[in-house]
């Protein structure tokens, strides 16, 4: 990190001159071209390209490409994990949710955080001790390679695909608003840069891009929250008092509202958020970038701290936006204000822009540019991590282990993952453009549901349950995958909002299917495994002891290959 601090200092210092350039005014849904934002963004991209060049020269082996040679420290990895998790959706989305509904935003933040302790207690060290490049290394440790790798690849690719589409569409919309660029240009730009980072720099570049972005995002959010609190004499009570005074919902923003209407739905969403975290392939992959299990354990501790701190900041930022943005005509759409008489509803660009407008309100145009650039950087970093996870699943799990039966030439394997990255990049750009005007909000929920119902049950059962057999894992895992997809399609969010069927006609009333899809997955895994009398099943159970000793002690674990 030190190595780059002077570089970033120079880049930041040169910003004001770029910012002085005049902005042009553009009508329609696009924002006026924001030159200070573009300048800072160009600075960020320049810095990340330098890092990619540096990383590319040091990326030769498969271990370098997939896991940065195991040379990332616990603290650095904690920042990178936090970076993967603090996506634009959670930064802009949660602060926007707090802006419109107050307390409800906090419920989501809590749900998104509580998966991390579980990862620390049950998964992080075992994952590092048993795996090498992907989480399928762990699930297939003692089970049938071919079947389990195919299952894990399906779970990973479907999760990555939905998450990626949601990020691409969000990116296009956001960049259109922030920078005044056309939607398709924004999508091509994000997809193109992502392909460069991943194909040339592999995990090393992807990790450092993520670390830099995490530091920028945490500093920017800290400044914003501090500026808000400063205006209220560092008294949260004064901030809340002003917010309840100006918000049309008044005191109701200080308690749970209508967002969570049905108790079962709340529990189901809670399960998806909590256990989905422990099944996201791009997050699980990060545990292989550190030296050993000790570093893996520490990295989740740091990540939990950073993410928790960040969510507390977004809560303050959301309330800050209620008091400073919804009351300032500069940030409001006059015609909507006329109709609704509510500053909350009239915010320019929708509630997701609350944090962006707040940046302008507390720090002026230059800070607005900084936060816009950080939001763009956030999307870039997150899509790169996703693309790498998807590509690894194709090249390591499908190509090297299934097609080549574990005997792939290392250079061929790297070549396949680079080609896979390019294919994923082109596909992401294409789908991003196709889905431009679709409601994709459900896709992140779906990604979490699949991660919680397919990846997580197979992973946790393979680590802890001797009785698990290949057949049980495959049937239970696919049952979880299928029921999660079906449950989302039949839920109100897709059935009514996206497919346009009548309100109230959704066959399943849960917003997230995790409650039954996780139960089905675990029940399927258990039942099929205990009934499995095949020869393969006996071998699966016999392999447990050796796996368990290695997961506990790290004896025989893939060693770090840092240069």
């Amino acid at each position, binding site marked *: 990190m030190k190595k780059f601090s002077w570089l970033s200092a120079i880049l930041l210092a040169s910003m004001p001159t770029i910012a002085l350039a005049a902005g042009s005014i553009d009508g329609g849904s696009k924002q006026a071209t924001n030159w200070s934002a573009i300048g800072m963004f160009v600075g960020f991209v320049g810095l990340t390209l330098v890092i990619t060049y540096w990383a590319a020269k040091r990326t030769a082996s498969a271990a370098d490409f997939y896991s940065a040679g195991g040379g990332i420290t616990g603290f650095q990895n904690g920042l990178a994990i936090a970076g993967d998790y603090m996506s634009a959706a959670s930064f802009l989305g949660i602060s926007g949710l707090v802006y419109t509904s107050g*307390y409800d935003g*906090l*419920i989501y*933040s*809590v*749900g998104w*955080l*509580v998966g*991390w*302790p*579980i990862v*620390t*207690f*049950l998964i992080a*060290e075992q994952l590092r001790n048993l795996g090498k490049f992907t989480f399928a290394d762990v699930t297939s440790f003692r089970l049938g390679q071919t079947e389990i790798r195919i299952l894990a690849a399906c779970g990973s690719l479907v999760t990555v695909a939905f998450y990626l589409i949601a990020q691409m569409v969000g990116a296009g919309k956001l960049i259109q608003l922030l920078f005044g660029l056309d939607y398709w240009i924004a999508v091509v730009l994000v997809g193109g840069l992502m392909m460069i980072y991943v194909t040339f720099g592999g995990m090393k570049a992807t990790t450092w891009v993520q670390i830099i972005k995490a530091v920028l995002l945490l500093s920017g959010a800290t400044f914003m929250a501090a500026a808000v609190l400063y205006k209220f004499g560092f008294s*949260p*009570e004064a901030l*809340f*008092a002003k917010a*309840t005074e100006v918000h049309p919902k008044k*005191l*109701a923003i*200080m*308690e*749970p*509202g209508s967002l*969570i209407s*049905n*108790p079962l739905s*709340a*529990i189901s969403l*809670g399960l998806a958020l*909590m256990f989905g975290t422990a099944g996201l392939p791009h997050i699980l992959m990060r545990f292989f970038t550190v030296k050993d299990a*000790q570093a893996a*354990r*520490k990295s*989740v*501790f740091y990540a*939990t*701290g950073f993410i*928790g701190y960040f*969510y*507390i900041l977004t*809560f303050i930022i959301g309330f800050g936006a209620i008091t400073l943005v919804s009351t300032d005509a500069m940030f409001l759409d006059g015609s909507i204000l006329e109709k609704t008489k509510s500053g909350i509803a009239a915010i320019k660009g929708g509630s997701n822009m609350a944090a962006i407008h707040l940046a302008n309100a507390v720090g002026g145009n230059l800070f607005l540019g900084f936060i816009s650039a950080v939001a763009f950087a956030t999307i870039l970093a997150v899509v790169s991590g996703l693309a790498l996870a998807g590509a690894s699943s194709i090249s390591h799990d499908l190509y090297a282990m299934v097609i080549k039966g574990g005997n792939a030439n290392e250079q061929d394997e790297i070549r396949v993952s680079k080609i896979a990255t390019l294919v994923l990049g082109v596909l992401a750009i294409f789908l991003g453009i196709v889905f431009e005007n679709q409601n994709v909000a459900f896709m992140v929920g779906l990604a979490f549901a699949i991660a919680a119902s397919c990846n997580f049950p197979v992973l946790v059962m393979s680590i802890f349950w001797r009785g698990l057999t290949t057949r049980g894992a495959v049937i239970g895992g696919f049952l979880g995958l299928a029921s999660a997809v079906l449950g989302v399609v039949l839920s109100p969010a897709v059935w009514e909002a996206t497919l346009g069927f009548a309100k109230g006609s959704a066959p399943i009333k849960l917003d997230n299917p995790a409650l039954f899809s996780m139960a089905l997955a675990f029940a399927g895994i258990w039942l099929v495994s205990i009934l499995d009398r095949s020869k393969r099943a006996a071998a699966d159970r016999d392999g447990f*002891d*050796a796996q368990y*000793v290695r997961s*506990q*002690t*790290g*004896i025989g674990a893939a060693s770090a290959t840092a240069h």
Partner: protein
Amino acid sequence: MSNLAKIERDPNYQELVRRRSSLGWMLSGVMLVIYFGFILLVAYAPKFLGIPLGSGVTTIGIPIGLSVIVLAFVLTGIYVRQANSSYDVLIRKVVEENRP
């Protein structure tokens, strides 16, 4: 595989597994109870979370929600501290004594 059997009989290994799994599952249980306790309050007793603290507008729900976040971090810290101070020592002993 004789080395495997030897490790499994090693008292240090047995102590490591016993202590680490009991703490890990216990803390996971505590986290689940805290989180689903919070979710059940949200679902069944939203008005309870809306009770104001003292005479101001800040409700009891704010410190409760924030403390779930802080507790998640604290529980993680407890585990990492235990692991750093005692499990790592046991792991090192097991590795040293069972070199093949």
